[in-house]
């Protein structure tokens, strides 16, 4: 688990899988989730394995989440915003009009 090295100057709140999370303004979403103790961001596409951020710089695609209904967002590249609704990315994303199988 990550520890904050200083108290946040300004707080924002958002939700992750329905749970209320508090973060510092300016955090990336991935950092905010890790600091909040989240260690499973998604389930992998092929094997359904639990996954969490690895590179934290936009390369590995391990930190994917659904943000405000948009799937497969890289949480390490997105700044956390007040009121964001974030959900785990479970398996492969859906394509619109395609039945959930």
């Amino acid at each position: 688990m990550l520890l904050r090295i200083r108290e946040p100057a300004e707080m924002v709140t958002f939700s992750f899988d329905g749970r209320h999370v508090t973060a510092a303004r300016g955090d990336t979403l991935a950092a905010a989730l890790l600091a909040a103790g989240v260690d499973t961001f998604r389930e992998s596409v092929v094997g359904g394995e639990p996954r969490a951020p690895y590179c934290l710089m936009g390369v590995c695609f391990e930190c994917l989440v659904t943000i405000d209904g948009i799937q497969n967002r890289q949480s390490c590249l997105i700044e956390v915003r007040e009121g964001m609704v974030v959900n785990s990315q479970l398996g492969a994303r859906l394509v619109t009009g395609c039945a959930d199988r």
Partner: protein
Amino acid sequence: MPLLDKSDIAVVGGGLVGAALAWGLARAGLKTMVLDGADLDPRASRANFALVWVQGKGLHAPHYALWSKASAERWAAFAAALAEDTGIDVALSQRGAFSFALSLGELDGLAAELEQIAIETGGAAAPYEILTAQETRRHLPLVGPDVVGAAYSPADGHVNSLRLFRALHAAMRHRGVDYRSGHAVERIEPQGNGFRLVGAYGAIAARRILLAAGTDNQRLAAMVGLHAPLKRSKGQILVTEKCRPFFEYTSATIRQTDEGGVMIGDSEETHTSAIATKQEISAVLANRAMRVFPCLAELNVVRSWAGFRVKTQDGLPIYEQSASHPGAFIVVCHSGVTLAANHALVVAPQIAAGTLSTDLAPFHSRRFHASENS
């Protein structure tokens, strides 16, 4: 110092074509060696679109239409034999394929070509249907309003071609093939009872050789009295993020892989030797794909790549044994995935036996001499 080699045959090239043939030669009982280039050499085997494709192949070349169809029919047995040797499932899926038309002119063109192939093969070519826009939509509700119709053939399919590449290499190892990477052949010297294959690694003697070196075949062929005139053909591919299954068939330009990513391809450039991908080509590919399946617009493209096809002047394969240097064989083809089954199960046993069947005579390179002289 020349290495004294105890192999019966040396295959030059370890891509899909060379590996399928080498595995087949080893299965036929030959001690087989493969001399492969470096990882970063141009390799169609790592850039291809992974189709097992018959539809529309062999216009004015009925022997090629039937050769492709026969390989597609052999593919299930080929995949099963590979799985038996390696435990690797190459994800063969043969549910048929659509060629989408975005104008009535395109649809008429598809219909005319497929009809011509049916006539030229006396009805033996793969079956097909021409579908109206409505019929296409009934099979595929997600196609966009720009799709005016499609050709459909049940003969076509696809595989996971990277897994195929890996399976062939594992299968070669399983059969005791002596595989050597980093052994680019610079020169072939015919000798009394065989050939010397010379490169930075030194020299290797082989009684028989099989050239399966992709775009390098043209250069090597001339050293043993063979002729393999190639033309330049660069193809570019886009790959999207993985998504849930939405397209269980395939097409020549769009396919969803077994693991969910969507591949978009089939560009062709003939006047460049640069391997870098070009954004304007990607834009054309993406635009056409989104007109076929508008839902693709939501997806992120995660990578793109380009490769050089191994294309002869007339686009058809060459299978030949050198007349001036018996024991030197060559296989040149663009469709290394589709034809892999034929290569492993039909061509390799013939080469092992020392003679190519007369069925393969239409693929002899003498056809190029005829057209060059006319």
